[in-house]
């Protein structure tokens, strides 16, 4: 089993090399090859799931990989999986497989480059979730920017260049701050063999360390927690650093929006869970209320911005900001329910937002616009419910999952989060409930304007969902419904690891 993680990590690279070698004209060969590749990756992750021991906290010994890479600097090629990263790995492989299917007909130019970059992206995302060496984690974190830049910039919407550059520069800035933190940690541990080992760094060894900067004594732990926080907060995105998100989401093609919202945003919160909280638990506790308030601002501000949007994709983008605010709230709670809820919300938001973006992509294929209300005031859509019944049903499932309706997966995670934060931050809980209400409001209002009412003349020409489109929506529908009623398969994975993290935080 030791090689399984390496296989999962490098399988997309094999796929990318294959796509590059296929001649430019044979586009369907490329698409089939990529599909087979992602299906194999998905199967491997299912194998990983089945062999995963759900009772042990911490890294699963069976899957650990640790090979010296640059031995002189104690940099290892180290991979590992535990309860927090396994749901993310499953989510990644599922979403990428569906994205290949979604891009089958939607991407029309430079197909070779598109699929090659997409598979490269998948490998780098796996790398981030699996890396147990800090340097390796950083390399994968940065490399992810390159395919994203090109994917948004070449195949995106009208304003794609601005979005791609903004995304790149913003995220690059955050990760560079993280780099300073990484190097500082390397020296603080005395450059031993374990200085980049994320596991060895965990556990709060740096609480007593202090730095002299310009004559003022600053706590090492607090300063670098803030650096790491900014680096991850740009990715989540947390309120002041979220301005790249609407542009990137709106301008990216459908499949890339799905990946961005479904997977890449989770990398930020994963960073908190894997790195910022365990390595600096005292600072995490210290800044806990601040994180909670920032999460609340995310929830309310994202929801209010979403309410004001006329572009459907931008609306869902802001709703992503809002939902990630819930994850931040759960993280700030630092108790069992809250953190379990946060990790579960990461998985659930991935699936439900992915559904929403897929749906918007499908309607964009037909209408070539995304306006709920056109700039001149006329309606963009209207009466879709009668014209496209299958589409509307799947849209309803996605929308209600996003809203947090009981019976669908979003409810479980949000309920757990609220249970978690109620005791510590009661005011925030009440205000977040208002955010939940606003969330329902804008989603239902959007649905009303698009699907109900008089049929818009243009809508009459739209065809309902093709078999391919239904094909890639079904897995997400099943996921959302099944995990809404019976969340145990996902929830049980994370309990042990989250419990370990919570008990670590509790000791500080």
């Amino acid at each position, binding site marked *: 089993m030791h090689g399984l993680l390496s296989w999962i990590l490098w399988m997309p690279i094999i796929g990318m090399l294959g796509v590059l070698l296929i001649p430019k004209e044979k586009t369907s060969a490329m698409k089939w090859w990529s599909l087979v590749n992602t299906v194999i990756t998905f199967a491997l992750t299912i194998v990983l799931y089945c062999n995963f021991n759900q009772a042990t906290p911490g890294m699963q010994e069976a899957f650990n990989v640790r090979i010296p890479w*640059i*031995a*002189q*600097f104690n940099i290892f090629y180290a991979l590992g999986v535990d309860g927090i990263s396994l749901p993310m790995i499953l989510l990644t492989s599922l979403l990428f497989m569906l994205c290949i299917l979604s891009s089958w007909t939607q991407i029309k130019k430079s197909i070779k480059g598109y699929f090659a970059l997409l598979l490269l992206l998948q490998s780098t995302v796996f790398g981030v979730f699996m890396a147990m060496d800090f340097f390796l984690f*950083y*390399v994968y974190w*940065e*490399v992810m*920017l*390159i395919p994203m*830049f*090109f994917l948004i*910039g*070449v195949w995106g919407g009208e304003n*794609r*260049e601005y979005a*791609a*550059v903004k995304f*790149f*520069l913003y995220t*690059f*800035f955050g990760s*560079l*701050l993280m*780099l*300073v933190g990484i*190097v*500082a940690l*390397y*020296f603080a541990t005395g450059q031993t063999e374990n200085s980049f080992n994320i596991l060895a760094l965990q556990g709060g060894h740096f609480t007593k360390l202090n730095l002299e*900067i310009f004559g003022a004594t600053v706590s090492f732990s607090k300063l670098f927690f803030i650096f790491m926080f900014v680096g991850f907060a740009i990715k989540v995105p947390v309120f002041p650093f979220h301005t790249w998100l609407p542009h990137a989401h709106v301008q990216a093609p459908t499949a890339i929006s799905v990946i961005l919202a479904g997977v890449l945003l989770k990398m930020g919160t994963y960073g908190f869970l894997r790195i910022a909280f365990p390595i600096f638990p005292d600072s995490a506790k210290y800044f806990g209320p601040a994180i909670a308030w920032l999460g609340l601002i995310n929830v309310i501000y994202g929801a209010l911005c979403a309410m004001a949007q006329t572009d459907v994709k931008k609306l869902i983008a802001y709703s992503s900001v809002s939902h990630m605010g819930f994850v931040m709230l759960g993280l700030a709670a630092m108790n069992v329910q809250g953190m379990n809820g946060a990790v579960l919300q990461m998985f659930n938001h991935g699936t439900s937002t992915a559904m929403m973006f897929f749906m918007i992509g499908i309607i964009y294929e037909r209408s070539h616009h995304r306006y709920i209300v056109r700039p001149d005031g006329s309606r963009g859509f209207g009466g879709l419910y009668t014209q496209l019944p299958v589409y509307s049903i799947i849209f309803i499932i996605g929308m209600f999952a996003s809203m947090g309706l009981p019976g669908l997966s979003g409810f479980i995670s949000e309920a757990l989060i609220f249970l978690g934060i109620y005791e510590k931050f009661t005011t925030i809980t009440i205000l977040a409930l208002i955010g939940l209400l606003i969330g329902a409001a804008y989603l239902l209002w959007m649905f009303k304007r698009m699907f109900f009412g008089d049929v818009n003349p243009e809508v009459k020409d739209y065809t309902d969902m093709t078999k391919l489109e239904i094909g890639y929506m079904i897995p997400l529908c099943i996921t959302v419904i099944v995990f809404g009623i019976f969340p145990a398969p996902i929830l049980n994975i994370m309990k042990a690891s989250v419990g370990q993290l919570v008990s670590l935080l509790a000791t500080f």
Partner: protein
Amino acid sequence: MYLNYLANISRYIPEILLVGLMVGLILIETTYKEDDKNKRYIFIAAIVGLIATFVSLVANLSGKPEAIFSNSMIIDPFSTSMKMIMVLGTLGSYYLSTISKDVYESLKTEFIIMAVGILIGGFILASANNMLMIFIGIETLSILSYVMASLKKNDERSSEAGLKYALYGGISSGLMLFGMSHMFGVLGTIQFSGMAATIATLDKAQMLILMPSFVLFFAGIGYKIAAVPFHMWSPDVYEGSPTPVTTLFAIVPKLAGIAALIRVTMIFFATPGPLRVGWVGLVMVIAALTMTVGNITAIGQKSVKRMLAYSSISHAGIMLAGLVMINEIGIRAVVFYAITYLFMTLVAFYITSIVQDKYGNDHFDRFQGLIYRYPFMAVMMTVVMLSLTGLPPLAGFVGKYNIIVALINSRNFTLAIILVLNSVISAYYYLKIVRLMTLKPQESNEKIEGFGFLNQLIIVAMTVPVLTLGIFWENVMAFAGSAKVFIQ
């Protein structure tokens, strides 16, 4: 005594080979008439000569470090490594001159003759152990550079470049001599070792005179490596000179100046004291300024060569930041960075030169849509631009990472943060070329003759180190670590 000198010559073979090469090329060029056969002979002779120099440098690496010619030059692994990088840079820019239209046909031999002369100057500078040698090295470098900058005889920008370089260089040499004369006056000797020994015994008044003279001395070397505020000549000279000459300028004088600076720093400022505090403060401020000014001014440029000039200013600033540590970790980081900088600069200038030859100017828009016409070349340029930014898993990232490691090792957090912020600023203008090449549609479907199979192969061969050094950098790092400065 002369037996001693004869023995020293065995360590001095690379320079002698270069002098022989220069003399031989002058003789061949003037005695035989100009036709294609002789041009080919000259080409082969130059390449063979440079490769022979490289081989003799490798042989020099295995000998033990020593001070030759009565302690006026030092042959140690550090200077030999920097010389190897300089020879590779000259080789690269020479091949570029043979394929570039910027260097006139009749002047292609003169290019290599003067380039070899510049290389000799750089070698002297890298090995210098007393002030006279530093001055000789800088002057040899500079005077030939003035001529090479104005190599495009009929172009007014080229003449302007040469004139600006000459005036600026003359003043800087004068200032440097002024500083050196004061240093001699206070310390009584021009030999670095003697000066370092006397510094320990100085009193306060003498230190007060010595510090400004060190600043003037730094001004002379800083002008050569285009550090702020001595950088104003650099964009005009880089833009006006023919592109192969710019490639040479971006590599050889910069690395030679940094090598001399490292040696001076290691000898004089190894022991703590008020002078060391002053010097470290000076270099820190100049490094920070250089990085920032280079990056910020590069954003507004419309000409690619000018942008590359400003970016090489900022890279020199990063190497200066590596200098601040005055220990082996810093030197190792700087040597590794120099190796990565060599390949990145060569590829960037190659592609710019070939595109410029086709269209006559090097405006950013000439790169539009390159990925549809020449996908390989566009990918190589993208790789090099991203590497210059400092993005993993490319070589530029590893170089910057090592300098950040060295900075944080000696607790220079401010400089590390400034370096990191400058990476983000530089990302903006490097991405501009990448954007134009990949995201915009192509202007025209014309063939660019310079991108023949051989040239593309050479460009790919030069990009391969950029890719591999990003992932498998341990061996080269060990090599950089063995480049120790020998102090005598």
